[in-house]
């Protein structure tokens, strides 16, 4: 839609964390300034549940958003962490270096936040994987390369 993009332009459309204003005047909205202070649970509720739904129930349309509740893939924390870092099948990545990424794009989460949200989903919604992941373990995983917005 950017193009207005899109189009949309809509669409036209945009990014790098979408230049958020400096003030979050609603607890429902965060900002660039406060995004980095969100906990794993808050990240889930502000961002992840848009697709994976409250309670990690997933959803179906022409395709599906995977159900996170009682998800056997979650036995691998690396699988979950790499998905958050890199995205998967249309899911936006959250592991770009801060201030970089793609137009209209995803927002940067710190390694500590990614660890926190991984621990949150692996410890809720009927998942009970006990071993907690640390920021250091996340940092050791490959992150999407620092890259600038290219020609669209």
């Amino acid at each position, binding site marked *: *839609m*950017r*193009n*207005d*993009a*899109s*189009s*949309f*332009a*809509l*669409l*036209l*459309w*945009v*990014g*790098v*964390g*979408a*230049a*958020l*204003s*400096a*003030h979050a005047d*609603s607890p*429902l909205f*965060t900002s*660039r300034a406060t*995004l980095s202070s969100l906990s794993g649970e808050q990240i889930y509720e*502000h*961002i992840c549940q*848009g*697709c994976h*739904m409250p309670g990690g*129930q997933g*959803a*179906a*349309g*022409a*395709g599906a*958003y995977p159900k996170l509740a009682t998800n056997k893939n979650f036995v691998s924390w690396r699988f979950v962490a790499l998905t958050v870092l890199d*995205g998967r*099948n*249309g*899911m*936006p990545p959250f592991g770009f270096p801060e*201030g*970089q*990424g*793609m*137009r*209209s*794009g*995803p*927002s940067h989460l710190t390694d500590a936040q990614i660890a926190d949200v991984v621990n949150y989903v692996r410890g809720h919604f009927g998942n009970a994987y006990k071993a907690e992941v640390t920021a250091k373990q996340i940092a050791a995983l490959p992150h999407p390369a620092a*890259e*600038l*917005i*290219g*020609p*669209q």
Partner: protein
Amino acid sequence: MENGEASNSLSRRQLLRMIGATAGSGAMYQAMSSLGLAAASTYEGPIDLQGAPRGASVLVLGAGMAGMTAAYELRNAGYKVQLLEYNARPGGRNWTLRGGDRYTEMGGHTQQCEFDKDLYINPGPWRIPYHHHGMMHYTKLLGVPLEPFFQVNYNAYLHSSAAFGGKPQRFREVKADYQGHVAELLAKATRQNSLDASVTKEDQEMLLESLREWGALDSSYAYTASGASSDRRGYERSPGGGLSGRPIPSKPMALHDVLDSGLWSGVANGDTFDMQTALFQPAGGMGRIGEAFGRELGPVIRYNAKVTDIHQDERGVTVAFTDTREQGAPQTARADWCLCTIPLPILAQIPMNVGQAMASAISAVPYAAAIKAGLQFKRRFWEEDEKIFGGITYTDLPIMNIGYPNTGFQSGGKGVLLGAYVWGLRAMEFTAMPPPERLKKVVDYGSQIHPQYHKEFENGVAVAWHRVPFTMGCFGMWTAATRAKHYDDLCQIDGRIALAGEHASFLGGWQEGAVTSALDAIGRLHQHAVAQGEKA
């Protein structure tokens, strides 16, 4: 390009960050659009597909702009064409919600659109630049009447909740004052001989004259309260007739206030290639194009068909699908060739035997978050009270844009606004809310710009694109790196299967990207088919 220009890139990144820190995301968007390649349509007139082999067939998947463009042209070229569509209507993202429509998003929330007759919202694309020649061609061909779309309205607002006490400023005033002060500064530098090294004396005279005209400066090259400046920014009292008609000039804002507000970031909103006048909208809603295409294609389209498997062999392509209204066994459709326009997040989940290159490309493109909300009000207060006729207000609030209807002016009665058009993180946050909560937030935030909101609001709809069942996202987002690695693989024909859609274009998110991508793909498919036909 990102590798060879490290120093360049760094400064660009710093610039973007600076803009993002001080201005709204509209500014960021504009900056990024203008720093990227200008997105020009490659449409070169009606496609020539002469010589289709007798009896050759194509199965098209998806009845959006790409799929219907392809089906229309292939059918006219003599191919046997079938088109499978998931929805019960044609258009895909070319879509208009009107009173009486029901929309159920992923997760199960259903919204009933309660707009009055003739009022609508376009949840997806809403404007067509005049140079999107493919879109212009097909709207003309299909007899879809167009109306002007006001990208720039000098009387709409630029708004920062942190500037001018949160009071929205007229675009006209911000533009005039920014331009006037910049002209005054440059004139001063010129007259102090600061530009002697770079501008000849003769050119300096011309420069000064042009600055006076461009910036509405007075005879001493100052930007002051005057007839000249008021003729740009508006008057304290506008000129009129008789004894009461003597105009009173208005007083410009100080340079510091203009700069500090960040509102200058909205001044160039209509200057980018895609936003330059003229732009258009179909009368009655963007969905009129998809509806017209659907009528034209008639029985070629099979609706309510959810594709579950795509399998090619040496002689053709078989597609399995289920009817979404029944619980029956999968049915199949088969053709010599397949043009697949299914959005990538969905296609990535459908078994399809293509090579690793295309498969990797399909999985490599994340889709953007975006939301749009349509709000019906009891009266058109933006026209009646604020004299805003069409166009867009930009704000740093989470709603980001307010779009005023570009039609039905002074019609009295009710009106529907685009109450929010949001992307990025805030769109994800809106998406994570149930629709009624989204609407409540949109109305609350909008009331900071238009205090009439709470009194006049009646009903609304809020579409979050990641929850749209037939796309699972707004549009494909590419980076320089993913383009370099995957784009060609996405577009190359794999055996008997070709992909098309805005995701397979350099006009991401634009309908023109879908149209030109479809024409590009069927042109190449046609060459393959002709070559095979000759062999046979």
